């Protein structure tokens, strides 16, 4: 599904054929599929309206109007039948039911980065709340939206919460002014609290491993600390120095090479294909010899939210690799082998990394840097894929298909789908 202005276009994932076309009342800001892929919600924040369309019955429609409460965020519940709207100023979260047309309210939600978290099996939802200058977490049962547990947290200013994939542990972390990660069990007991250091800026990003065995905490001191699920104590610290000197690490460096132009075959005026190939530079990966020093950017000292520290963390689906990005060294992706807890690969790109995402089935990482190339890494090697086409296609984000066979490449106003062939065994 993609939206253009106020129209919603639904295409088939394998052939990109247009299946449906819907028109909404206003410019769409946000779209989301329901969990069973039968419905799509389109949120228009300015008008405060959410419209829901059905895939099976094109005639079915639903419109939710928040009125003067305004709309800041909207999402589906895991059962695909309820929509949670966050009103402006985070006044409340309204739960609209598509089955019964009933409304529930969650009061005092917290206005933070990750204030709502659903468990993977969709049974429970944790919401961060703040009353009387204190942070609380409420756990709801998604079946009937009943409050299960309500407890306070010891944080100064709760920044985010995230469930472990096994749905039994909830991680909550504080703002970057204070390094504090709290781990709560499903029934609201505090299992453990972790604090690495006191004064400098704290947690920047957090990721659970898919088996719920590890919790990786990326902080502003350019380190990632991994906690284990048995004792909730740190098992290792992964450092991101600007110079890599270990012999066991492979460093792939992207190198550009401009194509050689055959002067005899130049035509005047130059054909389009030729022109694009002239100006588009090819690039490939080369292996750099260790020791390698990476491009390091010194952060500006007196600005808030400095570009320092580990800002992006992602575990691979098979629990073997962890990909990180240190914002000080914005061109490099660090891939750590979790079984050995050592750095295994560093990918050095020419431009700043915009995002990366793991394949949901295999240990394959796709990286985009804002150029028109997608970089793929797997333990077998890495490859640069050029998006064919005219003009610039600056990829800003990547999204994998759940089967791992294709991925969406998004730029500012275009998108394309990249299909990956499976090797015939």
């Amino acid at each position, binding site marked *: 599904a993609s939206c253009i202005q106020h129209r919603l276009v639904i295409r088939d994932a394998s052939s990109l054929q247009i299946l449906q076309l819907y028109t909404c009342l206003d410019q769409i800001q946000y779209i989301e599929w329901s969990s069973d892929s039968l419905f799509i919600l389109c949120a228009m924040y300015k008008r405060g309206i959410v419209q829901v369309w059905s895939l099976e019955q094109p005639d*079915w429609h639903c419109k939710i109007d928040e*009125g003067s409460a305004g709309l800041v965020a909207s999402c589906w519940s895991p*059962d695909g039948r309820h929509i949670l709207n966050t009103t402006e100023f985070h006044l409340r979260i309204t739960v609209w039911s598509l089955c*019964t*047309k009933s409304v529930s309210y969650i009061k005092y939600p917290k206005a933070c980065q990750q204030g709502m978290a659903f468990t993977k099996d969709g049974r429970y939802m944790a919401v961060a709340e703040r009353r009387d200058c204190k942070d609380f977490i409420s756990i709801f049962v998604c079946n*009937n939206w*009943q409050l299960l547990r309500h407890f306070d947290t010891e944080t*100064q200013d709760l920044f985010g919460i995230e469930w472990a994939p096994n749905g039994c542990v909830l991680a909550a972390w504080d703002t970057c002014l204070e390094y504090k990660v709290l781990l709560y*069990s499903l029934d609201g007991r505090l299992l453990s609290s972790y604090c690495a250091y006191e004064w400098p800026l704290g947690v920047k990003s957090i990721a659970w491993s898919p088996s719920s065995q590890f919790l990786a905490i990326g902080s502003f001191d350019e380190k990632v600390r991994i906690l284990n*699920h048995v004792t909730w104590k740190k098992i290792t610290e992964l450092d991101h120095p600007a110079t890599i000197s270990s012999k066991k690490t492979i460093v792939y460096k992207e190198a550009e090479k401009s194509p050689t132009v055959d002067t005899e075959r130049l035509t005047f005026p130059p054909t389009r294909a030729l022109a694009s190939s002239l100006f588009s530079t090819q690039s490939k990966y080369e292996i750099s010899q260790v020791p390698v020093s990476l491009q390091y950017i010194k952060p500006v000292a007196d600005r808030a939210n400095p570009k320092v520290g580990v800002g992006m963390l992602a575990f691979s689906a098979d629990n073997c690799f962890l990909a990180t990005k240190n914002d000080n060294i914005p061109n490099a992706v660090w891939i750590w082998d979790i079984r050995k807890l050592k750095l295994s690969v560093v990918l050095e790109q020419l431009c700043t990394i915009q995002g990366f995402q793991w394949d949901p089935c295999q240990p394959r990482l796709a990286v985009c840097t804002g150029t028109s190339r997608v970089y793929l890494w797997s333990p077998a090697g890495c490859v640069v894929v050029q998006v064919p086409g005219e003009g610039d296609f600056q990829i800003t984000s990547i999204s994998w298909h759940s089967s791992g066979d294709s991925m969406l490449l998004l730029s500012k106003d275009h998108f394309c789908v990249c299909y990956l062939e499976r090797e015939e065994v």
Partner: protein
Amino acid sequence: MGDWKAITVPVLSSDSKIIFPYTSERKRSPTSMNSQVLRLSLPSPKNMHSFFGAFCTEENLEQSISYIDRELTTMGFPSIYAESKGKELNLVSIINCMNELLVLQHKNLRAQEEVEIQHLKLGSDMDHLQNCYAKLKEQLELSKREIVGLQERDRQLQSKNRNLHQLLKNEKDEVQKLQNIISSRATQYNHDMKRKEREYNKLKERLHQLVMNKKDKKLAMEVLNYVGRADGKRGAWRTDKTEARNEEEMYKVLLSDYEQRQKQLLLENAELKKVLQQMKKDIISLLPPQKQKPKERSEDGLVLSDQEEDIGELNKENMWELSCETVREQLTNSIRKQWRMLKNHVEKLDNQVSRGHSGAWNEKDVISREDHELETEKLELEIQQCKEMIKTQQQLLQQQLTCDDDTTLLLQDCYLLEERERLQEEWRLFREQKKNFEKERKSFTEAAIRLGLERKAFEEDRGAWLKHQFLSMTADCKSENVTTSAFLRSNLTDDVSLLGSDPDIRLVKSASRQRKPPSVLSPAISPEPCQISQYMAQN
């Protein structure tokens, strides 16, 4: 250096003109002293002549002789005068005196020489000592200066040290101050934030109220039709029961997760315990059986027996999977003991190897290098063989599981052929049996037909006979009827029972009617039914 004063010989008052040309109280070098001494010992012959002439002249001969005599006597020499005779000189005594004087002079000269030599020696010694003294004085000066310099440096360093300490303290104080400042600022910020948040909350409340008021008009949800729930169930009311159920479910989820984890941990534990046991066994096997030394034997014997006991115990206990503290402790303690023993053993081996390199080689305790290498080679060979075996086995397995198409087809064909042949075989057997059955059936039917015919014949015969009998019986006397009728009746009952199973009821009925068959035919008839019965029984 030498000061010496010249000894001035007392000069006669009469010869006051003569002054010995000797200088006095002058510092001289030894060489000059020598020359002076020589000059002293050998005055110039000129001076001598004048000197001799000066002392004794012809006028004062008597006076000079008496003077010499006086001098000599005072010196201890005999008088030169001859035996108190006045004015006559004893030449012999004079010569003796002169000789004595010469000898004395020689002695004095020699003594003087010696003294001078010693004087020289002492002078050189003193020079040497003075040099040494000068040098030592210089050295002393130097070292004094050095000491002063070092002391100076030491002082400077100490002062620097003190400065640095001071700086460190200052820095620490500053750091502490800054931390205090930070914490105070943090609390201040927190307080301010809380204040602002309260204000914000108030605004939000107000806004919320306003929004809620306007709710009725604008907030709405339009749905074309209700959508069924994802899992098809109906929605439930919120009651206490549901709350309790929720709690239950939540606890179930948690418990299942904990159970899973516990299972994993138990498995891990069991594996680790197994590994530890294995290690223990290996360590025990590695340790040499120390039977040579009786002293150690007693120790090791005890320990070994302990180990074996331990193994036995632990094996037993592990079978029952106890994981109590004592078992764990026992295991770890025993492993630690074994490990220590192994370490000692390895150290001993190391020592022996080093000793062996240097010369003394204790073959009993040390496995020689060649043996070791042989063993490793053997093991490697074994490993190779095992690997090859595994490979071949894998290949065979592979073949079995996934052959390529030709062989599978062939195999399938073979199987089909086999099956077909078997089936044919069975069919043949089946057909044979069918034939046999057919034959038998035919024979049966024939036999049945025959039997029927025979029966008919028999019935006809019987009927005729009975008729005849009846006819004859009515003519004969009645006394024979009883026996014959009885006999016949028994025969008839036999026939009835025999023919009871026969579907031919007519024959039975007809048989039951005939009651009086003749006795003549009875023996002939009876074997027939017996035959028939036999035949029937056979079939």
